[in-house]
């Protein structure tokens, strides 16, 4: 949400009566604060962390580095938790990381059919579609159909590898480096790495 939209929604909020769900959340928060369970100021900080600090640009930096630094790439594929931690991305929903590499032969795709498990430390909060019933239902059974919905068409010869995150292990897809990017530096490469390419439902942008 941009700052303008954010301000706008606050103004709207002030002008009308709260919806039933808004009242319910407010009441729950007030009761938990009163009973010493939560600090409302902490909620503000949590929201800010995921709005401004922890998001898919973190993962994009990991991918760009792996594209530029063969040593780092090896480390990432061998011990993703440690390699990613070395870049400062640790913690909640990223405690046990595995990086899976796309090649011309194999395309990796990640799903959580049971809920919404997602590598928050490198990708932030999951998009709505990732948590939605259609994606969770179809990703495991009709991955090529799902990819087509995202506009991705893979060669028939490419094997699709689907990782259903059913425990506390979180998966990051290392997409293939796009062609004709030899002259780009790590930062420029990171700009090509889309969130969806790190879930496996997209490909990196062309330079």
């Amino acid at each position: 949400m941009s700052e303008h939209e954010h301000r706008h929604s606050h103004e709207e909020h002030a002008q009308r009566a709260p919806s039933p769900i808004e009242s319910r959340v407010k009441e729950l928060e007030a009761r938990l604060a009163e009973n010493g369970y939560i600090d409302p100021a902490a909620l503000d900080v949590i929201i800010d962390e995921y709005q401004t600090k922890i998001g898919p640009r973190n993962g994009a930096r990991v991918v760009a580095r792996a594209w530029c630094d063969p040593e780092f790439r090896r480390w990432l594929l061998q011990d993703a938790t440690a390699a990613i931690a070395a870049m400062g991305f640790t913690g909640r929903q990223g405690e046990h990381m595995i990086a899976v590499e796309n090649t011309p032969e194999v395309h990796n795709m990640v799903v959580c059919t049971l809920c919404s498990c997602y590598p928050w430390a490198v990708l932030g909060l999951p998009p709505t579609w990732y948590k939605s019933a259609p994606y969770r239902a179809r990703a495991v059974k009709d991955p090529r159909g799902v990819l087509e919905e995202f506009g991705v068409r893979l060669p028939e010869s490419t094997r699709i590898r689907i990782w259903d995150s059913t425990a506390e292990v979180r998966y990051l897809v290392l997409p293939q480096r796009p062609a004709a990017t030899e002259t780009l530096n790590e930062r420029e490469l990171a700009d090509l790495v889309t969130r969806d390419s790190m879930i496996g439902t997209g490909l990196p942008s062309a330079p």
Partner: protein
Amino acid sequence: MTYRSFADLGGREVAGAIVPEAEGELFHAPWEARVMALVVAMGPTGMSNIDMNRSARETLPNYRDLSYYEIWLAALDKLAQQKGVLGRAPPPPTQMLRAAAVAGAIRQGTSASRPAARPARFRVGDAVRTIGAQPQHHTRLPAYARGKSGVIELIHGAHVFPDTNSQGLGEAPQWLYTVAFEEKELWGGTARMQRSTISVDAFEPYLQPA
């Protein structure tokens, strides 16, 4: 009472399109952000653990009619009432997350790794078969992967066992494996073949030697 999860969706017929979303589009209303933050902030209080939270969410009878943050809210509400934390004499929280401690707590995370009580039963490359029965409690073996033959691909060490942890029966750490299945094994010959391999992360009690 029969335990029923409404969240186990893998491989089911579900209508509706997958709607792409821009990267910056995190919340669709301010209350959604508040609910996300409430759930994160309740973690350190000891009211419930992540497996209890998932169990509370997946058993909501109207699960499929709710949006994701509505599910989170309903489950938080349900647990808070069950645990008596909304009442006049709430049990004291283990810890309250202060604003100044948030960044550190998020970056610290909560590891699910635990020391193993015994050696792993399986090795990478072993053929295994998943158990077929649906237990009467929270579990993390999806229905589509029950009673199926696969191969151990990765071993992740011992992790907290959701089946017991969700019921307040302790962490009872179990070896965790990535088990890969060929599409034909999961969907039979009728499904449109995709040249795909599907894996789940399965705890040792879900597996038998094939």
